[in-house]
């Protein structure tokens, strides 16, 4: 029972991080039909910039968060401008896939050179003593992760539902041409969705950094698993992403315990392959009708 509670609690924390990153994939995919293969690197940069703010500049963790979010927005806008916009213009899917991959590689290399190749510890804003609940050890930071992730997603949902600009984003996702007819500048919406997507990734980065080591390589695996979550849940369903994230987080943690930490990443990836083989639109998504 204690083991189960431990697996669940650790799994949920990890799963929520995946969900937040996957959320970013959904944002850009719904408005533009593209996504950032370098999303993991956006998270990594957020974490490293956050580390610099907190360590070198001596900023308070909570004050650092908006700074990192701003950085994330700028980084996302940059990716869209350089990597995605030209590809959309020439209608090349190959183009944005390869250029977001390329930008991801460049960001990682820059991070390696600026911050070094070692993994660095990130000072935790909360005490590091675990609390016990139902026999499981839960770090206060893990709770912050879950809360932070949910708050971020709720904020975006609020934005989408209650503000006119949010509605404009949803409208663009629904029907880009019709949104243009309403006077909505859809190119700007796409840029904004990339900015927001990197913002959520950067935010996820500073949430998870105190729990693991921060370094230039932290983004790669996270990005792939977040993509798995986005696919498993369905790229068009917000709830699906949370469910997908939880499933993946828990399965992964369980594998780590029962089999070995080396194999931890495998079940999630196999689940991804199975979903793509049988229901590519995801567990919660709607299948598209072919139009000829």
């Amino acid at each position, binding site marked *: 029972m204690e083991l189960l509670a431990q697996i669940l609690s650790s799994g949920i924390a990890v799963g929520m991080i995946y969900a937040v990153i996957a959320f970013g994939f959904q944002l850009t995919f719904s408005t533009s039909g593209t996504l950032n293969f370098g999303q993991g690197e956006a998270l990594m940069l957020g974490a490293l910039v956050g580390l610099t703010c907190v360590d070198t500049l001596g900023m308070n963790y909570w004050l650092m968060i908006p700074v990192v979010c701003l950085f994330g927005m700028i980084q996302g806008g940059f990716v869209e401008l350089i990597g995605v916009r030209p590809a959309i213009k020439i209608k090349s899917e190959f183009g944005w896939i390869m250029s977001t991959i390329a930008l991801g590689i460049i960001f990682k290399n820059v991070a390696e050179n600026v911050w070094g190749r070692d993994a660095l510890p990130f000072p935790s804003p909360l005490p590091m003593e675990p609390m016990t609940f139902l026999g499981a050890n839960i770090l206060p930071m893990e709770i912050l992760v879950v809360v932070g992730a949910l708050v971020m997603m709720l904020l975006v949902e609020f934005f989408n539902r209650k503000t*006119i600009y949010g*509605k*404009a984003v*949803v*409208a663009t996702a*629904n*029907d880009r*041409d*019709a*949104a*243009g*007819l*309403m*006077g*909505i*500048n*859809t190119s700007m919406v796409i840029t904004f969705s990339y900015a927001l997507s990197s913002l959520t990734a950067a935010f996820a980065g500073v949430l998870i950094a105190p729990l693991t080591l921060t370094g230039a390589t932290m983004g790669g695996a996270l990005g792939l698993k977040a993509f798995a979550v986005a696919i498993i849940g369905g790229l068009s369903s917000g709830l699906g992403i949370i469910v997908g994230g939880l499933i993946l987080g828990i399965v992964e943690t369980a594998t780590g315990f029962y089999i070995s930490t080396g194999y931890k990443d495998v079940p999630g990836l196999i689940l991804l392959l199975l979903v793509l083989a049988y229901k590519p639109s995801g567990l919660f998504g709607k299948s598209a009708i072919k139009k000829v």
Partner: protein
Amino acid sequence: MLSIKNLEAGYGKVKVLHGISIDVPKGQVITLIGSNGAGKTTTMRAITGMIKPTGGEVTLSGEKIDGYESHKIACLGLAHSPEGRRVFTTMSVNDNLLLGAFPRFTGSRPKGDIKNDLERALEMFPRLKERRNQLAGTLSGGEQQMLAMARAVMLNPEIILLDEPSMGLAPILVEEVFRIISNLKSQGVTMLLVEQFAAAALKVADYGYVLENGKIATHGPASKLQDDPAVRAAYLGGAGGH
């Protein structure tokens, strides 16, 4: 108000419009009729920036808008109820209407009283009022058409372009749609109406243009066109039938 001169447009290699000229004076309802494939929807798309014209010019209240992007044209006061309705299916009726007024929120168009206009629009379209919080995707075809038109009205536009409002609608709903168009006309709204249903369109319009194979085959006051055999020929070919 809206003036189209020698407009040429197409899709990639296919040239659909070979130089058409249409005039929409303020306060009038002009209709563009013709059979499928004649180029009616292409004309609408070229005017509202969904595709770029390859030749000719489009002028709105004196400003040349050919080549502009859709959102810019909308902000100049041209509302478009597109072919196939294209309502935002995952959003409520209310939200769809609010989005119709988007440029008024952002200041690109005079703000006016958006809330008041929303209520007035719902009065004009009672079916929508009943369903104001329903998701637009769950509405029937006729209700979606009402929504698309109401959405266009929400812009407080200089001119409304209606693209095939009757498409896919049962006859009784078509009557309702045209009743609303008449209503808007009596309020002095300028409209360019593209229709496959020639009879209903010619009844409500002041002036008509008949489009055939990308060119204007004939044009004239709507009442005269109603009896013109050329109209019948443009749709059904030859001089067959009654």
